[in-house]
């Protein structure tokens, strides 16, 4: 026997069934319980710990990043824009507007002869439009029965936990101007 005939016996990649038949001819259970490490679904403790630690670290870094980003945020000063005239609405009436242009709908409510409040119309729970309930001094979200204080926009009842973003208003010469937006970051 020549020496060369044994030299090509490199170790086989992948395990071989005892009858040495191809995998396609093997029963299904053999594919379900592979002997090869990389075809097995085994997750070692070390792999799990590595995954958990790295994922947690990614979340932690993300939080820090958000905090740092918030520190350096500069709100651009929005230009004032007229959204209504004082006489346009009766006390207790409301209208929607956008401010700045292209924003989500804002809700303007006339609470007294000269007083207005304006909030973002999207509920802070799941973005349903809120409707004014001026006689009760509240804003109501009918989707999940959420209530907000009309005077401050703070949540009063129901699922929402954050206040509605408030649109700052100014009344000048019988016209209502929006001058800025207070986000509900808190």
């Amino acid at each position: 026997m020549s020496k060369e005939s044994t030299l090509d016996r490199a170790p086989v990649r992948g395990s071989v069934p005892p009858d040495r038949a191809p995998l396609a001819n093997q029963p299904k259970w053999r594919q379900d319980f592979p002997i090869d490490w990389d075809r097995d679904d085994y997750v070692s403790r070390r792999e799990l710990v590595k995954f958990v630690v790295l994922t947690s670290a990614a979340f932690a870094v993300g939080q820090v990043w958000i905090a740092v980003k918030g520190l350096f945020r500069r709100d651009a000063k929005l230009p004032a824009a007229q959204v209504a005239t004082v006489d346009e609405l009766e006390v207790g009436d409301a209208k929607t507007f956008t401010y700045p242009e292209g924003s989500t709908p804002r809700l303007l409510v006339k609470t007294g002869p000269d007083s207005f409040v304006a909030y973002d119309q999207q509920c802070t729970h799941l973005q349903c439009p809120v409707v004014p309930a001026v006689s009760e001094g509240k804003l109501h979200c009918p989707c999940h029965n959420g209530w907000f204080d009309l005077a401050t926009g703070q949540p009063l009842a129901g699922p929402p936990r954050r206040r509605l973003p408030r649109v700052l208003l100014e009344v000048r010469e019988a016209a209502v101007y929006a001058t800025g937006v207070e986000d509900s970051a808190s």
Partner: protein
Amino acid sequence: MPVPSELEFFIDPGRCIGCQSCIQACAECDTHKGQSMIQLDYVDRGRSTQTLPVICMHCDSPTCAEVCPADAIKRTEDGVVQSARKPRCIACNNCVLACPFGVPKMNTKMNLMMKCDMCYDRSSVGLKPMCASVCPSQALAFGTREEMARLRPRAKPVNTFQFGAQTIRTKVNVMVPNDAAQEHIDVTAAMHEPTIGHEVLDDVFDTQVEA
């Protein structure tokens, strides 16, 4: 990291001097927790000094893994059959009984089967397994085939074994004399020969000539 494919294990029983260095060194390995995984077989103790270190042959069709009911024994991509996974092993002893080479060892205290894994922490980074690094006669050798061909010109590596009707190819090679007729080693061929009083030396010096 897999064991480099060019590095292979070679067992040369003819070179074994029975010094037990491999057994001691094996216990130093980190992958099996202070336990020695090597068995030193005395071929015919009454008449011969011939010994034979038994390490895992790392079969391509590992019988230990085939019989494992808990799916605990796995073979890595480089062909190394690993010790049973601790969370899966149920200490049933099937592998210990089934292995044709008698390699797996049951640790009843730990309820875990451990076996020779070619010192995976060492060999996977290109180091020699513990036993091969200490063997004074290099009966256990770890290196490339070219190295072996150069150092042992009168022997050739064989890694095909016959167990009755089953053929197994192993990652570990056994060195046999160049002029041996067999292309494989028939493990069960001598099963019915008497084990006690077997004239080993006569065998080596007489029957080999005829073959």
